[in-house]
């Protein structure tokens, strides 16, 4: 019974959430707090806060954690399948069909026409990331830091995993806040 509810709830989240996981969080809240009342709004906010502490996709952590609370590991598996599988299958089928017609001139035109559009979407996302960093620090820190990181990542060609791992270690070891020009 409960498993069927979990399946329905996260199937809806997966099929109705446009714009990637983070924009689907309100949909999870509607299912989990408003509709099925598996937790209170405060508990949901707490789950969201700890999901933001960890790296990795947000929506799968939130959904997985909530379902673990109510139905254990089987609940987790159920929610993941319900949320991920339908759109993953649709995506694979559509792209496989598309690949089959790849030699046609107009299909090649389509794949060329989509690149500038995706470029703009990513550019907007890039600016949003910088703005959200700006919201908690100053330009005086952010600009030199960003330029420094650009050099490390693109000129020195250090793998981003190494850069991010170092940042994680440094921020966990430090006891004081980052403010102003120090790195």
């Amino acid at each position, binding site marked *: 019974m409960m498993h069927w509810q979990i399946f329905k709830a996260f199937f809806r989240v*997966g*099929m*109705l*959430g*446009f*714009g*990637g*996981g*983070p924009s689907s969080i309100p949909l999870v809240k509607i299912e989990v707090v408003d509709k099925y009342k598996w937790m209170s709004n405060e508990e949901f906010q707490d789950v969201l806060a*700890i*999901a933001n502490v*960890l*790296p*990795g*996709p*947000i929506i*799968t952590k939130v959904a997985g954690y909530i379902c673990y609370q109510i139905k254990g590991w089987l609940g*987790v598996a159920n929610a*993941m399948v319900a949320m991920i599988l*339908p*759109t*993953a299958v*649709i*995506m*694979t089928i*559509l792209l496989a069909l*598309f690949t089959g017609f790849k030699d046609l*001139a107009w299909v090649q*035109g*389509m794949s*060329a*026409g*989509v*690149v*500038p*559009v*995706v*470029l703009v*979407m*990513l550019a*907007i*996302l890039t600016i949003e*990331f*910088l703005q*959200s*960093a700006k919201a*908690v*620090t100053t330009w005086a820190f*952010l600009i030199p*830091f960003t330029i420094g*990181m650009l050099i490390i990542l*693109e000129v020195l060609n250090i793998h*981003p*995993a190494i*850069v991010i*791992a170092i*940042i994680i270690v*440094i*921020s*966990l070891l430090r006891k004081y806040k980052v403010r102003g020009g120090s790195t």
Partner: protein
Amino acid sequence: MIYMEIFLAFLIPGIIGYGGGPASIPLVEREVVDTYGWMTTGEFAEVLALGNSLPGPILTKMGAYIGYEAGGVLGSIVAVTASVLPSLVVMILLAALLYKLKGTNKFSTLTTLIRPVIAILMGVIVVDFLFNSLEVSGGFHTIFLIVIAFILLQIVKIHPAFVIMIGLIYGALFIR
């Protein structure tokens, strides 16, 4: 060992992408296009375009398709598992500890420092896409579509799926 490669290609974005699935996109591009060469920049843009027009979490959709391209159905399962499972398991196992840490400023420091890194990685893909488009479609179509897409997305605020559709139709009709 293709499955091991797929696993690593999605494990790294899954465990270092700070800020949810979309933040992992540049990390996936780096592995898939640069490190393993499973697809070109243009093909990656197509996958991203379709991923943005369909509902559901973005990283898992990308993983499902790219994993399938590189290693069939099993590859698809491996990619999705690698991108989702590690961070989820950590969250479930360490929840009690994380509750204690969530208010401390260590994590706000962390997020502040990682966002510019993600922004740079995304900015680099934007430049990649730009050069790719200039090469394939030429300057006129590229600039025209960038301007139109920007106006529709940021000023008129039409749903991204429709803007992608416009790009597809424009391309089918005018880009040769």
